[in-house]
């Protein structure tokens, strides 16, 4: 038997994940829905913008595409109105990020089959290349641009709408949403070098949001941080949990994020949500002083292992808040397990200085298994599998990968997702603890990176057969970066790096490439990663 949830849920989930926003936009019409880099939009204003965009999508999206709309916007009001517009138009949203390499963005766009894009002013620089590359006619909506004449004349095969071409909000016609349709398609690192699109359904998110809003007693006076880019699924917590109850999402500029303490204070945040690394840096830089964040009610961390010392320091810096550690891969919808930090009790429940991941959300079932997918006894280690209403639909247009990761274990009658995470199955007294990755997937500052993907690109770009990527230096939450080893010396490391930079997001690009005449092997004939890691310890640190 798996372990059923000890946590409870009060309300039945609603259907479309934007329905909570719509209800709040009536009830709290004049309260702030978002504050983006100093610009505030009320619920009323954001709804009107989103409806105007949605009506334009309904009118002008070219036929033949998938039920998806790309939102090529980052930390702007257009990013939020764009997400809501896609949902209102009955589409799932596909977040794109202008800080990602163009080739990656193009691969995501192409794979998703989107025919419509909503683009903010700052992402326009990257747009021209996409307009060139796409042979299919696209609808490009530029809500922040007034003059589109140049773009229209140069790319006549695409439909380009500026601010003055948008439909009035009143022309929007609500589309029914099926609970099992895609709410968002999020691309994660894939081991073959091709990003995998995770299809998350409305019903998955609705279940998550319903539990979270009740647990945290969210109300219209709450103010949420938005530390995550929309290409990171944790951003969906901030948006949909806040909007469900009329709260405000506070989105800082990237510069403001460098000083998170000031952001918390200036924005008078009540709900904080970030990767633990932010807390690690704040502590190291002396920014976690006792009693500093009195406005916070909830301090939530997710995305990588939470060091006990950070939970402890944070709870003292935010004395009126409860610290909770959340756990969950994108495939299980944002988060699906949690653990509440309790000073005096939690310290001894930590494993290797890492806060436990605790209990599954209501309705979610935990199964800790060995390599044959047989459940291990309580207190033993194994891979974490989970089933229930937050299990995503699978990988976009990839039945093979879906079948490998979404499985029916022996004797079970529902689909479990294989997380690839090693955990210790809880015994009667202790909570569930996280141990590490089963495969070579690591976390760099909360970003999931498949070392296999980096290695396959290394081999390809360096024109060699053997290349190894290692997470280094090792931190409690994963790794600080990647160091690469390449056999042979066909190319200068600099040249290889330049090529990788075009294909990988910055956090996944190796910091250094070491050329070796041969790679060390272990007795099984496999490349000895341990020896390479040891070598790094002996090399001078830059």
């Amino acid at each position: 038997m798996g372990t059923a949830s000890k946590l409870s849920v009060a309300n039945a989930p609603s259907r479309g994940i934007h329905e909570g926003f719509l209800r709040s936009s009536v009830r709290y019409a004049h309260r702030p829905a978002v504050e983006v880099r100093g610009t505030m939009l009320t619920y009323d204003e954001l709804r009107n913008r989103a409806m105007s965009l949605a009506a334009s999508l309904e009118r002008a999206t070219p036929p033949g595409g998938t039920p998806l709309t790309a939102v090529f916007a980052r930390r702007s009001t257009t990013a939020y109105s764009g997400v809501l517009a896609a949902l209102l138009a009955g589409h799932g949203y596909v977040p794109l990020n202008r800080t990602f390499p163009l080739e990656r963005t193009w691969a995501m766009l192409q794979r998703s089959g989107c025919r419509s894009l909503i683009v903010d002013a700052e992402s326009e620089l990257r747009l021209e290349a996409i307009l060139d590359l796409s042979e299919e006619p696209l609808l490009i909506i530029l809500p922040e641009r007034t003059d589109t004449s140049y773009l229209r004349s140069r790319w006549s095969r695409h439909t380009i709408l500026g601010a003055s071409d948008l439909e009035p909000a009143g022309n929007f016609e609500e589309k029914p949403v099926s609970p099992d349709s895609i709410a968002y398609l999020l691309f994660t690192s894939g081991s073959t070098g091709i990003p995998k699109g995770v299809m998350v359904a409305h019903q998955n998110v609705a279940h998550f949001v319903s539990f979270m809003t009740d647990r945290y007693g969210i109300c219209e006076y709450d103010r949420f941080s938005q530390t995550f880019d929309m290409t990171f699924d944790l951003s969906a917590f901030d948006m949909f949990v806040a909007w469900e109850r009329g709260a405000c999402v506070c989105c800082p500029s990237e510069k403001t994020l460098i000083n998170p303490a000031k952001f918390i204070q200036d924005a008078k945040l009540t709900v904080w949500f970030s990767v633990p690394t932010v807390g690690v840096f704040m502590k190291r830089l002396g920014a976690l002083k006792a009693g500093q964040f009195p406005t916070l009610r909830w301090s939530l961390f997710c995305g990588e292992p939470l060091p006990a010392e950070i939970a402890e320091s944070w709870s003292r810096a935010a004395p009126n808040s409860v610290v909770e550690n959340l756990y969950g891969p994108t495939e299980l919808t944002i988060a699906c397990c949690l653990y509440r930090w309790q000073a005096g009790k939690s310290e001894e429940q930590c494993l290797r200085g890492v806060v436990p991941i605790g209990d599954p959300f209501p309705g979610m079932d935990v199964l800790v298994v060995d390599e044959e997918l047989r459940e291990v006894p309580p207190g033993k280690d194994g891979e974490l599998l989970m089933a229930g209403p937050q299990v995503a639909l699978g990988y976009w247009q990839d039945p093979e990968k879906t079948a490998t990761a979404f499985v029916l274990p022996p004797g079970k009658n529902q689909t479990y997702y294989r997380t690839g995470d090693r955990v210790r199955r809880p015994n009667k007294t202790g909570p569930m603890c996280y141990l590490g990755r089963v495969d070579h997937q690591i976390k760099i500052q909360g970003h999931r990176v498949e070392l296999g993907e980096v290695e396959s690109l290394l081999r390809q770009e360096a024109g060699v057969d053997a290349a190894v990527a290692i997470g280094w230096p090792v931190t409690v939450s994963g790794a600080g970066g990647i160091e690469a080893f390449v056999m042979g010396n066909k190319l200068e490391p600099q040249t290889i790096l330049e090529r990788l930079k075009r294909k990988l997001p910055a956090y996944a690009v190796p910091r250094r490439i070491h050329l070796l005449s041969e790679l060390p092997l272990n007795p099984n004939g496999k490349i000895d990663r341990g020896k390479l890691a040891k070598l790094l310890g002996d090399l001078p640190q830059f």
Partner: protein
Amino acid sequence: MKVISVEDVRSLVLEKLQPWLDAKGLGAEEIPDNFDLLTEGLIDSMGILQLISEVEARFGITVDFEELDPENLTVIGPFCRHIAEKSLTVNR
């Protein structure tokens, strides 16, 4: 105590940023004083925090966020001057 010059800080910062500069095809000598590490897309906000904590560790100083204009914190010239000034107070 050894006095840390702005140049010392600058060369450490550029050394740490070498892989990112390489990837952009930029040489250290081409980086002007008003180069903004963040807006130029060289590294993200987490990268900046990591850089600050590495610089702090190397020079044994503490960057005071209150003292430094956030607009300037990610600009290489003002950042290096701030670190050098801090080291003077620490070593005095």
